[in-house]
Every structure is written in C-alpha cells, then in structure tokens.
C-alpha cells in the first residue's frame, strides 16, 4: 500500500518536474532570443551610424582631394598665362622656383608626350607615368597621373597641355607640377581616426594612385587584388566592388583583412576614374559606440546570466535540499538499522543470488557468531565453519532455487567461533528483487537464550520432579524411619503402662523409649540441619579451637561406642604446625562425629578406626589446610554408591547396610558443612574394603586471625 502510494507520488512528481524544466528552458530561450534580437538591432544601428559617419568623413576627404587637384590645375593654367608671354629661360626659372617655394610642390616639369621632362633647373629625365601621356593628353584635357621614379617618393603629377613651347632647347608639350603622395594624402586624410585609417585613391581596376596608410600597415598597390587575396570578401563581393568602382558608385562594406575588422567606404572622386577608399578599423570608428555597446551587452549578458544563474542555483538548491532530505532519511534509517542490528540478537545478511557475495552484513555478526564482517565479506564460505563438527546431518544449500518473493525457514546449531559455545539460530531466508537483481536476505535469529531457558525449565522441571521424587522418597524413607522409633516409643510406652508394676520391665521399656526418642531426635535434628543448610540458614561460627582438644573430645564421645563394639581407635596428627585454629568447633565436631559414627557403625567388631589430622603445605586465601582422614576397616562401599554417597537419603542397597540404622542424611549434611567451610570431601572405598574418608578443611591459623 505504502509502496503504491510512494509510486503514485513519484509519478505525479515527474510531469511536474518536466514542466518546471520546460518552463525554465523556455524562459532562458526567450531571454536569449530577445537578447540576440536586441544585440542584432543595436549592431545594425551601430553599423549604420558608423558607416554614415565614415561616409561623411570620406566625403570631406574627397572634397579636399578635389580641391587640391583643382587648385594645382589652376596654378598650371595661371602659369600657362605667364609662359605664353614668352619670358626668358632665367625668368621662367626664377618664377617657377619662387612658386615652388611658395606653394610647396615637389617639382615643376616641362613635359613631352613621350614622358620625357626637363625641370626649371635643366635636369632631364623620363617620367615614369602610369600610362602613355600622349594617349591621356590626346583630347588636350588636364590630367592627373601618378609617377614613380626610382629612388624617389611617389608623386602625383598634375599636367596641363594647354601651353607648348621650348625651354632651354627642350620642346615641351605640356607643363606639370608634382606633389609627393604623402603630402597630398596628409591634406586629404583626416585626423578623425587618430592615424588608424588608411586612405587610398584607386583606379577602377583597383590599382592605387596614391595612398595614405595607417601606421604599421603595408603599402598596397592594387586594392582589389589585396581584398581578393587576403580579405574575407567572396569573389562575388570583390567583383561587385570592382563594378562599383567602374561605375563610380559609392558604398561601404565590413571587411576583415588579416586579423582586423575594417569598415571600407568608397566614393568617386570625380577626378578621372579615381575612387577614394577609406579603410578604418571597426573598433576605432565604433570606439564610443563600442563602449556603449559593450556596456549594453555586458548588462544584458549580466542580467541574462544572473537570471540564468539564479534559476540554476535555485534548481540546484532545490535538488540539494531534496537530496539532503533524502540523505537524512537514509541516514536515519541506516542509524536505526545499525543500532537495531547491533543490539538485537538477529544477524542480517544480504547476499547476491548469483555470486553469493555479501552485500550487507550486520555488525552484530561478530558478537553473535564470532565471525568478523570482513571475513564473511571476503569469503562467504566462512559461514560453513559455524557448523559443529559433530553434525550428523549433511550440509544443505537452503538457498538453492530461492526466488524473489519466496521465503524459507530452518533452524541451525552453530558454534560461536570465538567462545566455542554452541548457539542455536532460527534462519529466515527471503528472496527479493532489487534493481533487477535477485538478492537473498537472511535473518539469523539467536534462539540460544530461549533454548537455554527451555533447557533450564526442563532442568528445573526435572529437578522439581527429582525433588518431588526425593520428597516422596524422603517421605517414604522418613515415614518409616520416623514411624519406627515413634512406634517403638508408643509401643514401649504402652507396654510400660501395662506393666507399671514390673519395675524392671518398665525400666527396660523406658530405656528403649529413651533410645528411640534419642534416635528420633537425632533424625529430626539431621532433617532440620539438612533443611537449614539447604536454605542457607546455617552460619559458621568461627572461634578459637585447639585441634588436639577437638580430637580428645571426639575420642571421649565415641569411646563408649568403640568399647561397645570392641574396636580399635587410633588418632594422630601429622605435620601440624598450627594446632590452634579458627573454625566452627561445633560443625567440625559434627563432621568428625558423623564420619566416625559411620566408621564405627559400618566396621564390624574387632575392626579398627583411625582418625588422622595432617596440615597440608601452603595456605589458601590466608587459611591453612588440614586433612582429616577417617579410615575404617569396615564393609567398604560400592564404587557406584561412592559417587552418590553425599546425596541425601542415599544408603547403599546392600544387605549389610540395610541392617544398619541410618536415614542417609549424615554424609549429605557433612558434605554441605565441608562445602560451607570451603573444603572438599571424598571417599575412597570398594566393597569389603576399607573406607577412607578424607576431608580437607580450611582453617585460619590463630596468628593470622589478628584483627578479625
């Protein structure tokens, strides 16, 4: 149910997530789209503004060039007038030199159609004009041409064919003045772009007439050729440009030359077929616009970026929070599981169904089974060592064929690998499909305690039954042993009553009553002692005791019985260095009396009974150790009975013993008292052999009792 709920929740989350992502993507796309549109608009506007500005500047330059050309042609016409007046050669020279100084032109030439020249100084030469002068001057119009002489700066030559004549014997067909290209272009060029603009006057075929190149740029001799070879303009665009040049049209382009982006603007000069072309780096033209542009771009990018970043951060944060929450949940569960698994008595294992590799081993494995997690993780077969070696059943793969969703249970007895104790486990194995893989989840529940409890209960039941049986036995034994003297007392009392006159008979009857009463009292005392001992109500009363005195007293007590049975009693002490001891005299006497009584009881007449006391070497717990050995030459004891001689109500089932009175509690009581004293008692005997009872007591020597 819960799983289904979770699945439904997850399913509902998915479309919502997708919607959110889609919304975010759409928003960003819209922003980008708008941004691009805006950038494109601004870019276009900037371009139009820039080129318009550039065209204005170009027009100014063009006007300047025209002005220069017209001015120089005008000078020539002016001088034609002077030359027509046939001045002498020296006068001409002076006049022209003064004009040169005043107007700053490079040189004055008297020209022939051949291209030969003579200067006012009389120098002759051949003017390397662009083309044949005679063709150019065929219609007698003024012309402007460029000339390049070896070793000299290129010049612009303004030629006027109006006047022909002879100067210093040189027949000329036209007069001309030349100006250095640099000077012309300096005047034509503009400072609007801080020297970064290159200005060219070109022919329609692209050949450069004059140029003013920007700093660092190389000379160009054919602009169209250079654009064709080195710019990003296509052949078609270059051709269009050439066509514009030929038509004398104006226009502009954005072009990349080398690694720099330029605005190229051009306009017809109106001088012959010349075109004025300006190449200005885009960055320079758009310097201030660029700044604004850059700022705008920065702002837009910043905003877009910021928004995108925010969105991304939000999404990331949400994801992180979710993840953290999930992690926390997982951590909680892990911790819970860890604590549970540590403290419960169930070992959890997850195994891979194919490889049997342990995916999970609960940490209580070591506590419950004595195997470390690492050893099992390393080799799953380590689990096989848990089986007791004395297992009768053959090994069985309980997991074979266990499918997902299936469950099996069985009980196993394992040996704890560290303590060696046997433990009982109830194993539950569940097959499970996890992420497409089949896993076996095993729960090994430690039922050892239960088993032990069961065992204890069984034992207690058994003990109770035994006790019950013992009680029944006791009652049946006791009832007889109690009834017998009671019957004797009652019988003899009845007889005494009925024979009151017979004093002797009454005396006898009273003696027997006394004996039976004493016997009964002894029996009751023994029973009470036994009960008190078993209930722990007897306490040892340790006092200063002299062992010799004890032996002496004992002898005195039993001397009557000894004499009566004509036994020999021997008592001695060996290696006793400390006679004076602390112990419970009464209980010591009781023990010795019990042992002696039995010895006397079960030794036929004429036998011997000996009591030996020996102090053993060393001390235990500050107490000396004394061995009391009571030996008799009596009927001995069956070894089987010797094993249970100290159990209550136990009397050897033999004809000899059965004829001897006794409830069978004396040895049990003796053993209990010896145990209370921290000693041991044992019997060595065989039937028809001597009985050797020795008990070792611990008694503190008197000198050690200081301060007690």
């Amino acid at each position, binding site marked *: 149910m819960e799983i289904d709920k979770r699945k439904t929740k997850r399913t509902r989350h998915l479309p919502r997530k997708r919607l959110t992502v889609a919304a975010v993507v759409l928003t960003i796309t819209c922003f980008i789209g708008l941004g691009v549109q805006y950038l494109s608009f601004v870019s276009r506007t900037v371009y139009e503004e820039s080129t318009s500005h550039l065209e204005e500047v170009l027009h100014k330059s063009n006007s300047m060039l025209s002005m220069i050309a017209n001015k120089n042609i005008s000078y020539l016409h002016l001088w034609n007038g002077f030359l027509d007046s046939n001045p002498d050669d020296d006068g001409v020279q002076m006049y022209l030199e003064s004009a040169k100084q005043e107007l700053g032109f490079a040189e004055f030439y008297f020209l022939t159609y051949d291209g030969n020249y003579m200067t006012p100084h009389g120098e002759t030469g051949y003017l390397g*004009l662009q083309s044949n002068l005679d063709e150019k001057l065929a219609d007698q119009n003024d012309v402007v041409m460029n000339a390049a002489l070896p070793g000299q700066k290129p010049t612009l030559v303004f030629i006027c064919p109006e006047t022909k004549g002879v100067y210093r014997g040189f027949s000329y067909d036209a007069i001309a003045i030349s100006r250095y290209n640099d000077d012309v272009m300096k005047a034509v060029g503009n400072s609007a772009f801080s020297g970064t603009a290159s200005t060219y006057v070109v022919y329609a075929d692209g050949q450069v007439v004059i140029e003013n190149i920007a700093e660092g740029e190389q000379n160009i*001799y054919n602009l169209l050729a250079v654009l064709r070879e080195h710019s990003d303009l296509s052949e078609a665009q270059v051709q269009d440009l050439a066509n514009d040049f030929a038509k004398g049209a104006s226009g502009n382009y954005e072009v990349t030359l080398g690694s720099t982006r330029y605005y190229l603007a051009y306009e017809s000069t109106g001088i012959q077929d010349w075109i004025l072309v300006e190449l200005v780096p885009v960055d320079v033209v758009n310097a201030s616009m660029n700044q604004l542009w850059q700022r705008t771009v920065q702002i837009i990018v910043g905003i877009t970026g910021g928004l995108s970043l925010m969105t991304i951060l939000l999404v990331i944060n949400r994801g992180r929070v979710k993840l953290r929450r999930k992690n926390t949940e997982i951590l909680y569960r892990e911790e819970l599981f860890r604590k549970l698994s540590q403290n419960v008595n169930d070992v959890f294992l997850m195994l891979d169904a194919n490889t049997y590799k342990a995916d999970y081993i609960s940490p209580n494995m070591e506590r419950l089974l004595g195997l470390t997690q690492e050893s099992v993780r390393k080799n799953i077969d380590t689990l096989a060592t848990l089986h007791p070696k004395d297992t009768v059943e053959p090994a069985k793969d309980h997991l074979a064929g266990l499918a997902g969703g299936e469950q099996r249970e069985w009980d196993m007895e394992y040996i704890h690998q560290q303590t060696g104790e046997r433990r009982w486990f109830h194993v539950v194995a569940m097959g499970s499909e996890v992420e497409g893989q089949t896993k076996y989840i095993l729960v090994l529940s430690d039922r050892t305690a239960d088993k032990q409890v069961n065992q204890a209960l069984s034992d207690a039941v058994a003990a109770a039954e035994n006790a019950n049986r013992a009680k029944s036995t006791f009652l049946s034994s006791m009832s007889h042993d109690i009834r017998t003297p009671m019957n004797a007392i009652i019988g003899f009392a009845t007889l005494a009553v009925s024979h009151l006159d017979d004093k002797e008979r009454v005396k006898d009857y009273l003696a027997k009553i006394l004996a039976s009463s004493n016997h009964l009292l002894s029996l009751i005392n023994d029973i009470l002692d036994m009960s008190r001992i078993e209930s722990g109500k007897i306490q040892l009363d340790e006092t200063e005791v002299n062992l010799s005195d004890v032996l002496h007293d004992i002898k005195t007590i039993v001397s009557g019985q000894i004499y009566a049975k004509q036994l020999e009693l021997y008592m001695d002490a060996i290696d006793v260095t400390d006679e004076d001891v602390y112990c419970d005299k009464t209980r010591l006497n009781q023990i010795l009396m019990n042992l002696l009584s039995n010895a006397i009881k079960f030794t036929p007449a004429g036998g011997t009974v000996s009591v030996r006391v020996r102090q053993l070497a060393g001390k235990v717990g500050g107490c000396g150790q004394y061995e009391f050995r009571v030996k008799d030459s009596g009927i001995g004891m069956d070894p089987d009975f010797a094993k249970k001689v100290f159990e209550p109500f136990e009397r050897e089932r033999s004809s000899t013993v059965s004829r001897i009175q006794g409830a069978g509690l004396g040895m049990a009581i003796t053993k209990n008292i010896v145990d209370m004293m921290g000693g041991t008692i044992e019997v060595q005997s065989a039937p028809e052999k001597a009985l050797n009872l020795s008990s070792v007591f611990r008694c503190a020597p008197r000198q050690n009792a200081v301060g007690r």
Partner: protein
Amino acid sequence: MKKKQLCIAFALLAAMVLGVSLLSGCVEKGTESQEAQEDKETIQVYLWTANLYEKYAPYVQAQLPDVNIEFIVGNNDLDFYKFLKQNGGLPDIITCCRFSLHDAAPLKDSLMDLAATNEAGAIYNTYLNNFKNEDGSVNWLPVCADSHGLVVNRDLFEQYDIPMPTDYASFVAACKAFEEVGIRGYTADYMYDYTCMETLQGLSAAELTTIDGRKWRTAYSDPANDARVGLDDTVWPGNFERMEQFIQDTGLTAADLELNYDDVTEMFGNGQLAMYFSSSAGVKMFQDQGIDATFLPIFGQNGEKWLVTTPYFQVALNRDLEQNDARRAKAMQVLNVMLSQDAQEQILAEGQDLLSYSQNVDYRLSDTMEDVRPVVEENHMYIRIASNDFFAISQDVVSKMIAGEYDAAQAYSAFNAALLSEETPDTGDTVLSSKKAYSNVFHKNGGNESFSVMANTLRGLYDTDVLVAAASSFTGSVLQADYTQTTARAMIMPNGLLSYQRTMTGAELKDTLRGFVKGCEGGFTPFNRGSLPVVSGITVQVKENDGGYELTGVTRNGKALRDDDTVTVTCLATEKQMTPLLQDEPHAFERGEDTVKDLWSKALSDGGVVLAAPESYITLE
C-alpha cells in the same frame, strides 16, 4: 544495468571496428592517395638557371616552410616552355631570362593574368608597360634588373690624363685618345648575340622610348598579332645609323667579333682596354683586383644617358592554378616571396647592385654605381627587347656592320627582312621518343619519376653501376613526346654539368652519398625534398631532421649495401657542387671530358637512345 553496459560495449566495439576499417582503408589507399596528395600540394617552380638554385630557391623555400615547393632548373628560353606546354607539362610557376612578349605569345592562353594583382601593381609602370599585352593583361612580371653599360678603367684615364666621358662626344674623344697611346678605347665580346643586341638597342634607347618607339615595340610584342612585325621606318633607321656611327667612332672591326668574355676581361685587366660594354658586376670584379673601375651609362648621341637593363628573369603563373583556390593561393604566396626585396637580394652576387622593377623594393646602389645614380634617378633605364629573333638577327646584322659588310641602310633592310621572314619551325629529326609522360613531382616514396628516368638512362650511357646526380641536373621534361635534338638537349641542365667517375667501395659510396644528401660547406646543401640528389642503381633511405637530411640506409639489388662491396660510381654535378666532395678524396675522380649535356647530345645524335624506366630510388622518412 547489464543491458546498458552491453549496449555501450557494443557501441564501442562497433566504433572501433569502423575506425579500424576506415584506417585500414586509408592505409590501403595510402600510397596512391599520398602521391596524389603530394602532387596536389606541390607548387612547381622552374628556374632558368642553376645559379638561382643555390641561394634564391632555398631562401624562398625557407620563407614558406608550410608550402611544398619543388624547384627545378629548367631552361632560359620560352621555347622550352612551349615544348612543355605542347606536351602537357607546363609547370605552376615559370621563369625565363631570354624573353619577349612576342616570343611568349604561344603561352599567353596558358598563363594567368596578373594585371590585377598587388604584385603587378607594385611594378613601376615604366617597366610594367613593357610586359602589358594589348588587351591590358599582364602574364609576365619582371624581377630586378641587371644593368649594362660601360665598365671603365679610371686608372688608365688618370694615367693618360684623359677626361672621363660625360657624353657621347667625350666618349668618342676618349676612345680616340686611347688609340693614340696604343690602348684600345672601347670594345666588347661581340662574339655573343646579346652583346650585339644590347649595343644596338642601348645606343638608341632614347629613340626607342619615344612614343613612336613604344608604339612600335607594343606592336612588335603584341602576342595577339599573328602577322610578323618588322622594324618601323620612323625610329629604326636612325638606330642603325647610330650603330654605324658608333662602330666608326669606337673603331670596332671584324677582329672584335672573335672576342669572347674572357678575352675582353683579360684585356681590361691587363690595361690594354679602357672601356668595355658589360654588366655592372664587372666593376666589382676588377675593383677586387685592384683596378679602379667604374660604371658609366651608354651615351646617347642626342646627349641622353641610358642604362640597358635586363630583368634577371621574368616570372609567370600557370592558368591551371585558377582551377584550384588552394593551389592558387599557395602559388600567389610563392610569387609574393619571389618578388620580395629579400628574395631579390639573394639573386645578386655579393656587392652587386639591386635595381628592382618593383616599388616595394628599395633599390640599392653600391659605390660602383655612383656614377650612374643620376641616370637611374632620371629613370633612364631601358629594358631590352629580348626575343629570340632579336638575339639571332642582331648578332647577324651587327656582326656584319662591324665587319663592314653592312652600312646602316643595309643593316636596317637586312634586319627588317629577317624579322619579317617566316619562322623556320624546328623541323629537327626526332632523336628521342617517350611513350609515356612521367611525373616531375618529388614523392616521399620513390622520388621524382622523370628524374629517375634520366638518371637511369644516363647510367646506361655512362655504363656505371651507380649514378648520383644533383637534383638540379634535370629539367624534368620527360613527357609523352617526340624530342628533337634541341628539346632533348634541354632535358639536362645546367650547361656546366659534369660527370665524375671512379670505382669505390660501399663505404666510400656511402660517404659520397652523405655529402650529397646532407650537403657540405662550399658545395650544395639540399634545402627541401625536391633538392635531394637523384640516384640510379641503388636505393637510398633518407631521414628529414629539423630542416636537414640524413642518409640512413643504402640498398643495392634489394640488399643493404655492404661496406666492402665494390661499385663503379658516376656523379653528375657542377664543378662548384662537386669541389667540396673532392677535397678529402684519397682517390681522384675521373672527370668526364664532355659536359653531361654534350655527352647526351652526342648519344642522341648517334641515335638509339631509349629512355629507361623509372625506379623508386628514395624513401624519405
């Protein structure tokens, strides 16, 4: 999870298989496409002289390390290129020295129009006009100029207290003054056609540059003009008159027609001659010998002074380059470098003056040219008309004028008639036939096929086990064609190519090959792949190493050449190329009596020469 892993693994495997098969496909096609790629990427430049191969070509290659340029020494006239064109072998960039637009006419449609290029725009109009076709197109661009004028011994003038000439009159006066003291005032090596031609034109440079003169020149040079053009009757008659006057004034006689260059320079060096017509290089030569020589212009009889200039070479580009933008761009790069100032300086001998036709090259006049600086600055530099007709006819007519056989009028008529007479086509017999055209592009695996054909053929002629030739030995013109004596002779360059033979051990041969491959000081150092030597009878393995080359192996008959093998070896090289290799030789090479060209010509004349098949002679790593 498993499925996913399987899919990924499968995809990777598939990609690997595809990649391997593509690569193996590439490898299989490797050799073939590599050669085709090499052909595509190589720009072939034909040089008209081996002199350009030594400094100029290495410089150009060094500026364009990413462009594979194959420099081949071709021939110095347009007939050579006409032959190549006729047989489908016109290279990408061609240069020639003996040139006229008229002679270049048959090639016009095969050459790119450079009029609209920046390189053409850089050339002074004065000179570019001489290369402009009627339709305004320009196929040829001139490089820098070699100037010709008068080499003058100033010491003699001082010794005999004769004023240095400043115009034609003083020149003539000086000649006469020297005659009186028993010294020849003026002569020249009129044995040669170019001296006759340049003198004739130089004396009338002023007239030839007038409008009429230029008109005639344009008409004469116009490649579109199918009809033969003779001399005009405006300018040329006067030219012969001036020539006649000059002959008289300088005392030239038939004896002067026997003088070669060495004779004239010997006379000058010995103080027996005061002035001779030559290039300005002569001045430096004599100054180095301690003679105070100077250079003066030709004194025109009209008072003008002119220098006769000869472009060192003209350069043109194959129109086929326009079909491939990448190749065209590369070729233009090469052209740009070839016309640069630094490249032009490589053409010159040490100390020689640089008179460039381009505005972007600073002209450099050494002290030797100080006396002609004004002439240069006056722009009185005349580019000679150098058509084959003019060479041949000038030699014939001027010689006869000098010999007294022709006066001016006769000379004019004879010259005109010769110009107008129909060209006798080269109807020489076929002396060699090739059924196949061979590539003249260097391939990393194999070398240059056409070079190999020539090397293998010559090895047969020299009857030698091994032949080693400098790469500049062959013109690469092994085409599917029938060769006359002239065209077959042109398969070998330069004229000074000699043979050196001896028997040597394998170890000695390897040393010799190392000298050819690695190059040696004072000799020739290969500067790119195409300039590696050509071998026949052996195969060499060469490794390219930081712009240099190293011989890594030699095999003969498929096995490694052992040091103790004995082979007869013939080396083909110029004397200059071979000299450093001969220096440490314990055993002398036997130098062939004939030049390689002459031996080849003789073999061709004797008939029966069959071109050998090419072999793969080099592997370049």
